């Protein structure tokens, strides 16, 4: 199928999903017990009468619900998700200031998990009943069962006590001065523990997945052909088989993006990483609903974008999809 056509269909689909998330946000404000104006003000019963009147005016809360939805959507499309009365700033500005660190954390964890996970999986497929295979299986069940924030805290306790090499909180050290490189290095140092905590669960999963698909592929005809014509073992593993074995990992990583963001919320809270997760935590404590709903919207947006990117990567890795054959 034509690339442009598929891509535009994907994008239209994504746009509809974004619209649906906005409608959900609107519904959540109205489904919550109490006066929607109160919910928007975010101070359950504490807002002044003037403030509430202003909100009612702004969101047309005296008009029929469908008109209100129209107002909400048209404001949202123009990039206005409301005002945070707690931070006294527009929600979109707040989120824009925090979304970068979250994207950095999630991409770092995911890259880390995919690279190490696939590598371990390929190694394990070499000896299907070997030590590494067993270790990966056990490790994935253990990693899957431990609460992610708890793993993070255990790392903090361990590293703060025994080997204090990596910082356990925040994203920068304000005492670090000098060149841009020194600052980048500082951020990377702070990134190690949160990214490791977030990635560790997925390393084992991806290793297990790669191992299983490698084993299946290594038994297939085209690999036997490659062996028969004398292709070296490392080339078979690293090129012929891996190319196909990595497809399920790409699919799963794309599907799991939402749960990785969920994990990031917890990991950010543990390591005081200044991203959307800590913002969500703080604004929930403050009952700052516009910000909380804004974060829900933007994180859904990240997942939608990640899904589109996964689609594109998938076409890139697997030529069969490109040619439609």
């Amino acid at each position: 199928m034509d690339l442009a056509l598929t891509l535009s269909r994907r994008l239209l689909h994504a746009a509809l999903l974004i619209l649906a998330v906005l409608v959900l946000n609107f519904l959540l404000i109205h489904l919550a017990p109490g006066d929607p104006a109160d919910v928007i003000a975010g101070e359950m019963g504490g807002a002044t009468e003037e403030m509430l009147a202003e909100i009612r005016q702004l969101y047309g809360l005296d008009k029929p619900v469908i008109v209100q939805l129209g107002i909400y959507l048209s404001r949202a499309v123009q990039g206005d998700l409301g005002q945070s009365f707690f931070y006294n700033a527009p929600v979109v500005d707040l989120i824009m200031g925090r979304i970068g660190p979250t994207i950095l954390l999630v991409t770092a964890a995911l890259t880390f998990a995919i690279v190490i996970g696939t590598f371990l999986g390929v190694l394990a497929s070499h000896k299907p009943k070997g030590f590494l295979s067993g270790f990966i299986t056990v490790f994935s069940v253990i990693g899957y069962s431990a609460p992610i924030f708890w793993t993070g805290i255990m790392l903090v306790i361990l590293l703060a006590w025994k080997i204090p090499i990596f910082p356990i909180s925040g994203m920068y050290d304000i005492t670090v001065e000098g060149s841009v490189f020194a600052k980048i290095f500082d951020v990377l140092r702070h990134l190690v523990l949160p990214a490791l905590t977030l990635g560790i669960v997925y390393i084992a999963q991806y290793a297990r997945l790669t191992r299983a698909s490698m084993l299946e592929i290594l038994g297939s005809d085209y690999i036997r052909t490659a062996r028969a014509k004398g292709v070296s073992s490392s080339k078979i593993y690293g090129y012929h088989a891996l190319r196909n074995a990595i497809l399920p990992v790409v699919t799963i990583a794309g599907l799991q993006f939402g749960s990785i963001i969920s994990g990031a919320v917890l990991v950010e809270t543990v390591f005081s990483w200044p991203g959307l997760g800590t913002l969500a935590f703080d604004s929930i404590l403050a009952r700052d609903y516009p910000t909380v709903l804004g974060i829900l919207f933007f994180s859904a947006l990240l997942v939608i974008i990640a899904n589109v990117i996964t689609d594109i990567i998938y076409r890139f890795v697997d030529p069969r999809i490109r040619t439609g054959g």
Partner: protein
Amino acid sequence: MSTVQQQTLPKSQHPFVEAVKAFRQSWAGLLGFILLLAVIFFALAGPYLYAVDPFEIIWAPLTAPGLVENAPLGTDHLGRDILAGLVHGGGATLFVGLTAGAITITIGILVGSMAGYYGGAVDETLMRLTEFFQVLPALLFAMVLVTLFTPSIYVVSAAIGIVSWPTTARLTRAEFLRVRSLEYVKAAQSIGAKDRRIIWRVILPNSLAPLIVSATLTIGVAILFEAGLSFLGLGDPNTFSWGLMIGAGREYVLDAWWIVTLPGIMIFLTVLGFSLIGDGLNDAFNPRLRDR
């Protein structure tokens, strides 16, 4: 002579009987089963064997384990007994896990079976809905739901159920698509069985194996969810749970490792129990995977 005649065909067995036998041979499944029994016993019988109120302040705050007899596992930041917390916190954690798991599976099976059986427009609509729910990061969505409504163990369970059903729905749909075109379903249709009967009495029982595995894992995930929400301060503040203990001890991690570590181990062991049982069941239901 007669020995030849006595060699009859092996007695046919119900697939589930076979599965139980296979499960008993899987060390993962057995270990999980024992682990889970121990946790359930600890959570149900514990409060009677160790009747100290987990909310009561019994000793100086942040006492380390093993220092005083009253608090064998130490005290938290308020001076409450950690052991009492562990003993009393399990019930709520298991309750939320089971309730949320049941809600997840019910919604998932309903949506997935309708989509898979009817196909066409029904399938299209339901799958769009599922996709929509999968786009929302589950924990954040659950956080929003719990914040908008008051946190109680019922709201927390419902919120976890509402955000986690899509996986079960997709699995059920896939199973229904597979089974739908088999001969015995055609046979049931041809003798005029109603849709409801075919869905619940014909297809569902034949799709149960992967759904049971997924249900086991779902309960484990729900327990992790509850722990996460409690850690963020969104659990039920009036019910003692392991997650609540971790949330409360969060600020004191570097001064008192035990407040967070011990309930975390309990959650880990519980979820591990469910995961291992899931693994064991998976092996038991899929004879082809057994030798892998």
